[in-house]
């Protein structure tokens, strides 16, 4: 079947993309950056962080879960939407415990990078100081639940693919444990034991924040020389760019 091309506008700019691709990717193909924390190229979108919220024909929708269609009028970079995105980011900062000065991910963290991009000097919401713990029981990685934004990237991306029939999806090594306010990421007891060094590193890299960290490698790159220290997060340097390149080579 021939692919249908959709014509639509983003912030009044005429754009085209294949009908059915997500708005976030359609925008990317047209050189437009829509910020996101949970979306990751090549895996099923979760729509969990809401940072990519755009307006389509005047209605709020998440750009990662909405397919682009003919005639859409999409708003991305408007004062109203950027304020909404800032408020989501500020909520994440006040809901978790983000002590950036003591965080190994500082400078490479996408949550922080978006806060920089939006020029957030202090959040508008009160800090919750919720009780969260650090789980350092695994030999290769540790989990700092203070920083987890429950984006489910680790669950969706880090899969065990050993001994599986071709074409099947692989089993998630990470999972949500408990519910509601108590929910937290946990490693599968059995699959977690076999976590390879590569997957451990990948888990750290795809986690948008400093919640999954590989042990004994801290502060290899000094503060000041990290990804977002001098350059704002954009189409050219987000984690998704790398993912996109990998996904399209497949």
């Amino acid at each position, binding site marked *: 079947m021939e692919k249908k091309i959709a014509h639509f506008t983003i912030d009044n700019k005429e754009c085209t993309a294949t009908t059915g691709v997500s708005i976030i990717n359609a925008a990317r193909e047209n050189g437009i950056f829509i910020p996101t924390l949970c979306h990751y190229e090549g895996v099923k979108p979760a729509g969990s962080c809401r940072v990519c919220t755009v307006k389509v024909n005047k209605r709020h929708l998440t750009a990662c879960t909405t397919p682009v269609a003919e005639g859409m009028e999409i708003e991305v970079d408007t004062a109203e939407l950027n304020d909404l995105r800032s408020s989501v980011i500020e909520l994440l*900062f006040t809901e978790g*415990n*983000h*002590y*950036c*000065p*003591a*965080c190994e991910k*500082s*400078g490479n963290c996408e949550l*922080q990078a978006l*806060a*920089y991009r939006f*020029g957030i*000097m*202090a959040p508008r919401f*009160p*800090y919750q*100081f*919720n*009780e*969260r713990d650090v789980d350092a029981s695994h030999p290769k990685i540790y989990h700092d639940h203070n920083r987890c934004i429950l984006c489910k990237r680790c669950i969706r991306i880090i899969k065990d693919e050993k001994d599986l029939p071709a074409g099947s999806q692989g089993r998630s090594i990470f999972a949500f444990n408990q519910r509601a306010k108590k929910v937290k990421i946990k490693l599968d007891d059995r699959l977690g034991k076999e976590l390879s060094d590569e997957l451990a590193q990948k888990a750290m890299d795809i986690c948008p924040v400093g919640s999954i960290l590989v042990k004994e490698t801290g502060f290899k790159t000094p*503060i000041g020389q990290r990804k977002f*220290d*001098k*350059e*704002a997060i954009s189409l050219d340097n987000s984690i998704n760019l790398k993912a996109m390149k990998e996904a399209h080579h497949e």
Partner: protein
Amino acid sequence: MSKPVIATTSLAGCFGCHMSFLDIDERILDLIELVEFNKSPIDDIKSFTKDCDIGLIEGGCCNTENIHILKEFRKKCKILVSFGECAIMGGLPAMRNDIPVKECLAEAYLSGPSTVNEEGILPNDEELPIILDKVYPCHEIVKMDYHLPGCPPRADLIWEVLHALILDVDIDLPYELIKYD
């Protein structure tokens, strides 16, 4: 016309923000041409002797004295600025915020591995300020007019902002100056 007056203080902070302030290096000579300092560790004036234009607050509020000083600064200063992560969000001292105060005190004064305290006394002299249930960001206690993030805020950020406030001009801060670490 008299010079604008600046006051500074360190509440629950480590003095790192003040150190970063000193890192403006020789620009401090320009600064003292432009302003006069009042209550501040920089000139060691202990109490306010007049109303001030700008107050810089390092550190959050971890005890009753911090709150008292912060409120005094709010009364005396026209513009109040949180400088540094601790003033903005409590910072490292706030890492105790999810631990009950009783447990913190017990760990520090009763059961810590290097503690010798046979009578089991917790500090209770009435001269001592009372420790709060948690460490509070300054803007949750009084209205703060500006926030300068960083641990510490970069010297250039402090300089740019002070300079703009003193001269009452708009500024466009470069990306590299606003960092949370």
